[in-house]
């Protein structure tokens, strides 16, 4: 996994230059911690997609700590902010691997990287010696089944599918039966991208989820939400609604190899008790990394 981390680290260099560099600059220039200082700080945090709400939280905490401990050293001010962010990211449970046999339902809005992430997960589990089956639950988008099929081939795992236009719930049902009879360790279900404000599509998702839950005597069930690191505050509402429809067990943050900061997970962590499990750092099937809150915060500031 070390190489993934290196990759993530190098991919965040640009991020760091903007974010951490700016804070350094700010602290060096102003020297005093007045309202202007905190206004600027607020902007920097927002620029990292951390959002207004969480930025305010971070700022008021920083203010309080500076006043309480009479902090004047610039490095220490920076450290304070870092620790506050770490604290938010660390809320909730530590990373835990799944218990098998398991069913993983992968959900999210359009184009965030669900199908690719499934390939990455399948590849990871297969390397661990697990027997993995994929379910082509996106029966809506053109060539979505074919896309997953190609990944299944590349990774070397079995895929359960039906025609385009078929009821996705029936594909999930078939895949569950197949997973049982073949004694698979892990079944990973792809779903069509859906915007969380579309009730009919969310109902369809809830139906798939119910069908999986009906089999919860046979499997541990995990619902993962895929979020795009490039997205702004809308990701908060995605997390909120998907969590309401399918109780989420984890978030996977993709496209961190881009220049986006992925700071949006900070308000999400602050608001909802959903662990961030993995991060996506590229388009290949090896480009996945366990999310480590310490590393993430460090990388933002080192």
């Amino acid at each position, binding site marked *: 996994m070390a190489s993934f981390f290196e990759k993530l680290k190098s991919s965040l260099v*640009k991020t760091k230059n903007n974010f951490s560099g700016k804070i350094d600059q700010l602290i060096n220039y102003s020297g005093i911690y007045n309202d202007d200082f905190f206004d600027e700080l607020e*902007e920097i945090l*927002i*620029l*990292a*997609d951390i*959002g*207004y*709400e969480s930025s305010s939280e971070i700022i008021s905490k920083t203010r309080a700590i500076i006043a309480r401990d009479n902090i004047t050293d610039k490095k220490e001010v920076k450290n304070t902010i870092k620790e506050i962010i770490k604290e938010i990211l660390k809320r909730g449970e530590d990373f835990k691997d799944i218990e098998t046999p398991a069913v993983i339902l992968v959900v999210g*809005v*359009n*184009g*965030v*990287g669900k199908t690719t992430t499934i390939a990455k997960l399948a590849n990871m589990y297969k390397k661990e010696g697990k027997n993995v089956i994929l379910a082509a639950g996106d029966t*809506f*988008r*053109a*060539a*979505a089944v*074919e*896309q997953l*099929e*190609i*990944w299944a081939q*590349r990774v070397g795992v079995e895929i359960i599918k039906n025609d*385009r236009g078929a009821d996705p719930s029936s594909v999930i049902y078939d895949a569950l039966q197949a997973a049982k009879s073949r004694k698979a360790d892990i079944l990973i279900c792809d779903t069509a991208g859906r*915007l*969380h*404000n*579309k*009730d009919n599509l969310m109902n369809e998702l809830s139906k798939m989820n119910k069908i999986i839950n009906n089999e919860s005597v046979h499997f541990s069930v995990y619902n993962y939400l895929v979020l*795009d690191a*490039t*997205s*702004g*505050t*809308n*990701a*908060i*509402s995605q997390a*909120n609604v998907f969590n309401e429809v399918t109780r989420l067990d984890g978030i996977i943050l993709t*496209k961190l*190899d*881009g*220049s*986006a*900061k992925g700071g*949006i997970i900070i308000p999400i962590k602050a*608001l909802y008790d959903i662990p961030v499990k993995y991060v996506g750092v590229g*388009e290949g099937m090896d480009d996945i990394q366990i999310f480590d809150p310490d590393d993430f915060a460090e990388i933002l500031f080192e």
Partner: protein
Amino acid sequence: MVFEGLSSKLQDTFKKLRGKGKLSEKDIKEASREIKIALLEADVNFKVVKDFVKKINDRSMGAEVLESLTPGQQVIKIVNEELTALMGNTPKKLTYSPGGLTSIMLVGLQGAGKTTTAGKLANQIKTDNKKTLLVACDVYRPAAIKQLQVIGEQLKTDVFADLEEKSPVKIAEKAMKFARERFFDVVIFDTAGRLHIDETLMDELLQIKKIVSPKEIILNIDAMTGQEAVNVAEAFNEKIELTGVILTKLDGDTRGGAALSVTSVTGKPILFIGTGEKLTDLEVFYPDRMASRILGMGDVLSLIEKAQANFDEKKAYELQEKIKKQTFTLDDFKDQLKQMRSMGSMKDLMEMIPGAGKKALKGIDIDEKEFDRQEAIINSMTKDERVHPQIINASRRKRIAAGSGTRVQDVNKLLNGFEQSRKMMKQLSGLNNKKHGKFKFPFM
């Protein structure tokens, strides 16, 4: 609720301003700060926000506001004007080469919706009576070519694909030759999604550009994009000089701050917006409407347009006459229901109403099925019953419920509601619309 949209935030700000009468400089400063926060929360890039707020501040300090009797409204007007100006004032059209082949390149990050948009554009261009070719240049994402082929089949539009060729530049070259030889009018190049910081792939775009000499190079950008939208747009623009932008996935509940960010850093117009997954879900971008939507003034224009398109004037006149003569029957009510429904889903419509933001609608669960039920109930009534609902006694109610697959309570509810709205209409036609209450649908 912690997560608030730009519209409700600005509404709050302006509510405060409205209550004040005359504004002081301090008031304007405070309003500016809140506008700034609201725009930032809506994911407008902070540099863009800073410039914008400064403009608002400067103009608001002017006499036109401070001396106005309605300063709050003046500020709203200024904000609205500046937002609209930032997004390019008037809608832009696609440009075609005057003679011969027009090529269009679609570019953007991974997952921005290029392939679907390519199909939507082809569908749109069809209405201009042009022979269109779609070209599959995404050799990287698994089944991306297949996806475009399926879309082409759906549209009955030709797709150029070369599964053997691994170089998108070569594919583009071959496609141009193919298109020229077969006298196509328009060629749309669907390119692979790429990171703007990936130099190799950005160079590849430049090479494709050189070969196809595109009339339009359109950046596809996800409406949900955060602060990075400016950097993405700037990088693509610098490398290959964009001609326009298509904002996708605007049917989500994002405030769409990216629209402001992208247009203001590139100076390039937003040509279309993507509003759904169907190949017909591509709409012209109206900067003024977007500004209104962002400001929470509701998408009033779209609502009016929708209503007009579906409003049968003759029927409306008849209805008016009936209300006057108080001969409004359950049949008329059914017609009314149908008309309302033909305008789109109730929820969509409600969301376009000013003030009825997501927040306000949160508690209201509009049950579309309720309309189906009501229609079914009326359908199960005899002609006589529809004209004289007073004859519907208990046994008739039972029969109607059974016939429509509903419960007697549902029938009762409908009849009570109908009676109420009949009374309401009586009063309304008498009162001549003085102080009409809330916007209210009958029976809800």
